[in-house]
């Protein structure tokens, strides 16, 4: 795979407030990359820099080997699906989609062919004459995607495109978007704060927080091997405990020593220990090193979500078996379910501007 976009030490501040803090990122051709993070983490800013709507204070934006830092959006072979669609209210569906081709002075006959083709791809054949105001949210979404894709960009940027849709429609569109991306072989750069969406669609997930990239990896990597407590907490639910690494493959937490599969830490280094709620097995109290009292049980459909209070920690457990609230249970986990992370200072994300 060849690199299509590279960000090299890109930094940006507004009014002295750091939005992006020296980020570097390579995006490969035909890849589905998701920028994932809480609001204010800089993901939309990163997307706008790639789209050409913002210019970084320092660093380079490289597109197909050329520096494009101050190339205006209309000269980039990149199209965007905007957060609230940004369709042209004075044009109907057909004219919205044809807009980009008309600006580029394409032949009307070619425009017709391409618009018809793309409408079929997004399942909106027959909607050509419909005015934008008379479309549902999901249909507007499809028009926005079609309007961008009809220009055959090298890269498609999507800024939380499914945010305004209801859950069921969102799930359908996730699958559809992934299908479109694979069939057209276009690089997608997707911004979302929804970790499930990121895991479902992406080839590569870029987890961001406070203007820094926390981790880049496949969805499996990010979920199974989160690099720090922030990533672990943001990607799915987690139990994050303070621990001390006794030596390689042995960690101490919650007053007990546990075997684990991690090494390479200093002896007695303080670490974060992450255990996923679904990795905790319920057993009888005398069969486990840690036991606690069940305080709350919620049925979630596929599993039960349980809160368990032990001596000095509140545990979250996902299990297909429910325990009685108030009962005492033991909690077991396998060595490979214990994830050890270096302590990082996770700065609080109080900045909402992006």
């Amino acid at each position, binding site marked *: 795979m060849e690199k299509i976009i590279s960000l090299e030490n890109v930094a940006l501040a507004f009014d002295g407030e750091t939005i992006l803090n020296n980020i570097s990122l390579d995006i490969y051709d035909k890849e589905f990359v998701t920028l994932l993070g809480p609001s204010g983490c800089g993901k939309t800013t990163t997307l706008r820099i790639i789209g050409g709507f913002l210019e970084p204070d320092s660093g380079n934006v490289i597109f197909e080997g050329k520096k494009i830092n101050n190339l205006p959006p209309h000269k980039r072979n990149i199209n965007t699906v*905007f957060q*609230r669609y940004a369709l*042209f209210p004075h044009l109907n569906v057909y004219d919205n989609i044809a*807009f980009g081709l008309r*600006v580029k002075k394409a032949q009307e006959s070619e425009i017709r062919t391409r618009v018809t083709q793309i409408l079929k791809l997004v399942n909106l054949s027959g909607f050509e004459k419909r005015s934008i105001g008379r479309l549902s949210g999901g249909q507007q979404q499809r028009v926005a995607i079609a*309007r961008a894709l009809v*220009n055959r960009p090298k890269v498609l940027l999507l800024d939380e495109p499914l945010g305004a849709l209801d859950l069921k429609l969102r799930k359908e569109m996730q699958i559809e978007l992934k299908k479109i991306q694979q069939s057209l072989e276009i690089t997608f750069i997707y911004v979302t704060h929804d970790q499930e969406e990121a895991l479902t669609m992406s080839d590569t997930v870029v987890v961001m927080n406070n203007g820094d990239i926390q981790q880049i990896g496949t969805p499996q990597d990010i979920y199974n091997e989160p690099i720090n407590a922030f990533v672990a907490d943001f990607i799915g639910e987690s139990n994050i405990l303070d621990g001390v690494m006794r030596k390689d493959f042995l960690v101490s937490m919650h007053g007990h020593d546990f075997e684990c599969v991690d090494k390479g830490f200093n002896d007695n280094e303080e670490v974060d220990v992450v255990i996923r709620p679904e990795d905790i097995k319920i057993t009888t109290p005398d069969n486990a090193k840690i036991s606690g009292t069940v305080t709350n049980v919620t049925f979630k459909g596929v599993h039960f979500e349980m809160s368990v209070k032990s001596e000095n920690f509140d545990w979250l457990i996902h299990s297909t078996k429910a325990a009685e609230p108030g009962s005492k249970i033991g909690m077991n986990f396998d060595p490979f379910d214990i994830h050890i992370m270096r302590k990082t200072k996770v700065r609080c994300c109080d900045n909402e501007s992006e």
Partner: protein
Amino acid sequence: MNQNKKGNGMLSYLTASPYILWMIIFIIVPLAMVAYFAFTDSNGQFTFEYIKSVGQYTNIFIRSIWLAAIATIICFLLAYPVAYILTRLDKNIHSTMIMLVTLPIWMNFLLRTYAWMTLLGNNGIINSILGFIGLGPYKLLNTQGAVVLGMVYNYLPYMILPLYTVMIKIDKSILEAAQDLGCNGAQVIFRVVLPLSVPGITSGITMVFVPAISTFIISRMLGGGSNLLIGDLIEMQFLGNSYNPNLGAAISLILMVIVLIIMTVMNQFDGDDDKVLI
């Protein structure tokens, strides 16, 4: 439920009644009286005489329409970029800028127009300055140009405000989408901003053209005796030496019909309203 609805209907009818009363007394009745005078002579006899005699003032009608149209076009050309730039400015200074735009309206209309007389006169400030560099004096006052200038100066804010109001509502992301799809700055304006601001354009044109076509102060003060407009003509029939309210009413009525026709034609460009909303 049903009763509730009925009650609301009654209530809204009641709350509207002061305005309906106002409208009847001060709009409908006077209009009917204008029409009555236009079609009667001084003895109250029905006649077409005055309506017919309006024909002899065709020149003045054409001049009025022409000057008002030029002033409206100039207002539009000046106001459109101003309104667009206003919307691109930082939100915090919007209200200040709007205040500056409307500031001239706060000054008395007569005073403003008098000021132009002193500026444009043969011994006025402009000719004095030109004199310093060895030019002029030019005849600036009592020309059609001065009348148009007066109209533009006085009515410009009424063009800027509706344009600004419509443009500020255009979502910034729509402009970004246009850029994203290949538009340079000018293309964004012609392909997106302009079509989306059509409602502002039509109301701006209405708010400038209608008062400009019927003005009499501006033409009297800046146009001298030779650039009579319809407004002056009407005024003369009521307050001047050639006192003739029946003719004045007839001229007013025909002016109204002309304005109505022009506005109807223009509103055709407004197109499908619900398309241009948002």
